[in-house]
């Protein structure tokens, strides 16, 4: 893997990011001064104890939430201070999300769940193609209720990648799955990252999963405790926990 970490390849650049939640008298500092650059085509794993601010950081990167201080840039778009509809456009065109609880639309089939997103994207792949990619070409017309948890999560990944996003943000995508199903899901993410070159950010509690990353970022109490480069990346299929 020969990726150059120069400014030309930077996708996200964050400076001094902070997030403060006000709960009446109490202030919760979820993020305190994060400086971070994420590059094209990397697979980044975010580790850290519960409450350390991982989800908060991911949500800000994905344009779901706004920081209380600092700034984030996506390519040449400034995300901080962008309007509601600019952020919606940003998510629609550039970001794919994968969540712990799949969040599929129960009234749509696998194919239609993907189509719901491709219908509004500018240069998507066909839904069938995306489902093939995650190995569900034979489950096109199943409703979510007719799929297993792992299959539902793979549909969610297909839905996230079908629009050919530049960024894939995954918050504990294997959190609700058993180890062997989780591996299948991770293999799909790895494949997408490799074949499409999508910058992939993956949150997990599982240090074992960190072995498949290009870089591992550890958060602690709202700050970056450590950034570690993985020189010996392992394939997802070799992982287990």
């Amino acid at each position, binding site marked *: 893997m020969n990726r150059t970490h120069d400014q030309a390849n930077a996708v996200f650049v964050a400076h001094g990011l902070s997030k403060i939640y006000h709960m009446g008298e109490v202030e919760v500092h979820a993020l305190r001064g994060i400086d971070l650059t994420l590059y094209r085509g990397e697979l980044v794993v975010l580790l850290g104890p519960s409450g350390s601010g991982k989800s908060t950081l991911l949500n800000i990167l994905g344009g779901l939430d706004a920081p209380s201080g600092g700034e984030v840039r996506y390519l040449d778009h400034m995300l901080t201070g962008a309007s509601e509809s600019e952020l919606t456009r940003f998510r629609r065109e550039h970001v794919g999300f994968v969540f712990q609880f799949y969040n599929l639309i129960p009234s749509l089939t696998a194919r239609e769940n993907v189509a719901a997103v491709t219908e*509004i994207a500018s240069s998507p792949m066909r839904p069938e193609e995306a489902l093939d990619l995650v190995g569900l070409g034979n489950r096109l017309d199943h409703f979510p209720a007719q799929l297993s948890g792992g299959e539902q999560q793979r549909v969610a990944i297909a839905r996230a990648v079908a629009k050919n996003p530049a960024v894939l943000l995954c918050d504990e995508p294997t959190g609700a799955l058993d180890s062997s199903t989780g591996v299948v899901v991770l293999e799909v993410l790895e494949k997408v990252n490799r074949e499409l070159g999508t910058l992939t950010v993956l949150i997990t509690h599982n240090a074992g999963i960190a072995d498949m990353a290009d870089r591992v970022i550890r958060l602690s109490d709202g700050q970056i405790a450590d950034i570690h480069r993985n020189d010996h990346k392992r394939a997802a299929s070799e992982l287990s926990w």
Partner: protein
Amino acid sequence: MRALDRKLLRDLWHMRGQVMAIAAVIMGGVATLVMSLSTYDSLVSTRDRFYSEYRFAEVFASLKRAPEPVAERLRALPGVEHLETRVRAGVKLEVAGFNDPITGLMLSLPDSRNPVLNGLHFKRGSLPQPYSADEVVVADSFADAHGMQPGDTLVAIIMGKRKVLTIAGIAVSPEYIYQIAPGSMFPDFKRYGVLWMRRSGLAAAYGMEGAFNQASLTLARGAHEQDVIDRADMILAPYGGTGAYGRADQFSNRFLSEELKQLQTTATIFPAIFLGVAAFLLNVVVSRLIALQREQIAILKAFGYRYPAIGWHYVKLVLLMVLLGVAGGVALGAWFGQGLSNVYMETTFRFPYLDYQLKASVILIALGVSVAAAVSGTLYSVARAVRLPAAEGMRPEMPEAYRATLVERIGLQRWLDAPTRMILRHLERRPLKSMLTVLGIACACGLMMVGNYQKGAIDFMVDLQFRQAAREDLALTFIEPTSGRALHELTALPGVEFVEGFRDVPAILHFGHYSYRSAIYGIPAEGQLHRSLDRALQPVAMPPGGVVLTEHLARNILHVKPGDVLTVEVLEGRRPVRQVPVLGITQQYLGLSAYMQRDSLNTLMREGDVVSGAYLAIRPGAEAAVYARLNDRPRVLSMVANASAIESFYDTIGEFVLFYNLVATLLAGAIGFGVVYNSARISLSERGRELASLRVLGFGRGEIAYILLGELALLTLVAIPVGFLVGTGLVGILVQAFKNDLYRLPLILKPDNFAMGALVVVVSALLSGLLMWFRLGRLDMVAVLKTRE
């Protein structure tokens, strides 16, 4: 405070929009009930108090003329407690600056004291001086309509002689709470006035010295009214008695009773419809609301709470909403009730005061119905949630099973994008819930149609009555039956274009054990001015030899059909009793009539060409001149102008109906909005997670709004035609319930009725949509990702 109670308050606060909307639904139903019943109770209570405080007589007798000593024989009858005689004179009145004909009625007061029976309640001024011959007391309705005060003067034409009278007092009498001039259908305070004058003065002017032509009496305890009436009739027959009668047939009291009876129907049917629909909606809304709490219920159950405790917890939540709604409804209803009572008093019934009554039982009914509807809905949903094993309730909700909808299965999917499919599948997934929502919205539409139905119906009745049936410009009554030659004189008057004579004979109609006291009208066979209409509302020729009856009179009061023979007890002249066949049935929405050919009625009465009065068509512009000429004729007792009758109708019954209409419309609107808003709001709660997920995926606010509001719009569109059916059905119930002697409502629904029904639904939907739009803007995307519902 216990944690669970704190949760309750927090939930309530969180749902405040829905709480208000649910309260609005209850409020609408309760306010209608409280308004209607409290108005009814107040008027009944006011009437009873007024009757007893002012000693309203119990039996009344009119006659041509009897010397005063005859009164002693009446007083001596067993069962008579108090008896008072008086002189009663039909007059014409003139008020400076008012040119229409005015009919007046003058009654005598004892020369030097207050009357014992039928006392006067003075609003201003006082009794005339003892023995005064030029001072009068004027009924407050007439005085107010003309802005007259004690000290003002007016002119009375008594037996053709003009007399200038000074007003000594302005008063209300229990005998004239409802005032209608002979020959007209509705109260007209400007053109009909009741006056009181000291006896000797009136007797002198009317040629009644030492005599009386009316007596009223009260009954001793335990006396039998009919016995007293029969004995009084025997004594008065030689003096031209027209039959004594009890309170039930006393004109004002009878109409008051009819109006109250009708108000009671209104006060039962309307609120039954409104409260019934509100209760249904409440039940639906509450059970959906509680169904949303499924997971919380499972958690409570896992903690070890039992069904009764959980049920009670949610019942408390719902009861708070119900209490809010009932309290608001009672307050609003009481306020509207007082307003309605006052409209009644200004337009129809001249009570001197209002005894406003809001009975505890009314509030209890309101509370009972609302609580029952809400609590049953709550317990049903709680029971369903509790029946689930706790683990299942808490498990991340299994994606619900959906399938392709019918529309898609028949091959239309090509034209449907994903959001549209979501709408259709969601609706088809829960057909019962979709149906209940449609029915709820339809009910709101139907209520609105009921609320404003009466206005159109009344316009229709007035048009039919005054432009199809009674088309004369002026109806005049002679002082007594007169030769038909008098019609030639009327025809000769300048400005009179056409004259038709009529004969009316007061009579009691009997069939089997049914009877009805009214009059038989003799009209020309092929009348041009005054006609009767058949069921298809076409004018029909009067057949000879029998009577034609208004449908309601024939079918519901006398229970006769064409071919049956009535026994007619005439109350005039020698008071013959005759057998008369029923020849036909006519459709008439206002009043009740028995018509005959005039020639046949003359034959029945064994008299020649005799008329009681005439219908006149007057050349436009010549009215004032004709009135003036007729005013001077001593034989003309009263005149009623058609145009002013319509005007007075709208001033009285119309005003009341419009008030009721306005209130019903407002309340139907409140209910409609409550239902539509709640449907939308609950939908948002049920699908908030899904919509937030779509937002995360990059759907804009407009796109997710389409999914949520598209469903609402679709349901609303389906609900409108269903609502038209519901409304038509409810109006049908109303029409069936509203059959009384004063009027029957036609089943007439005009386009604007339907439009109003649809409008309330559409406006509510748009408003709810707007509110949802703002809510969608505040949808929390981050929270959705953290929790699994």
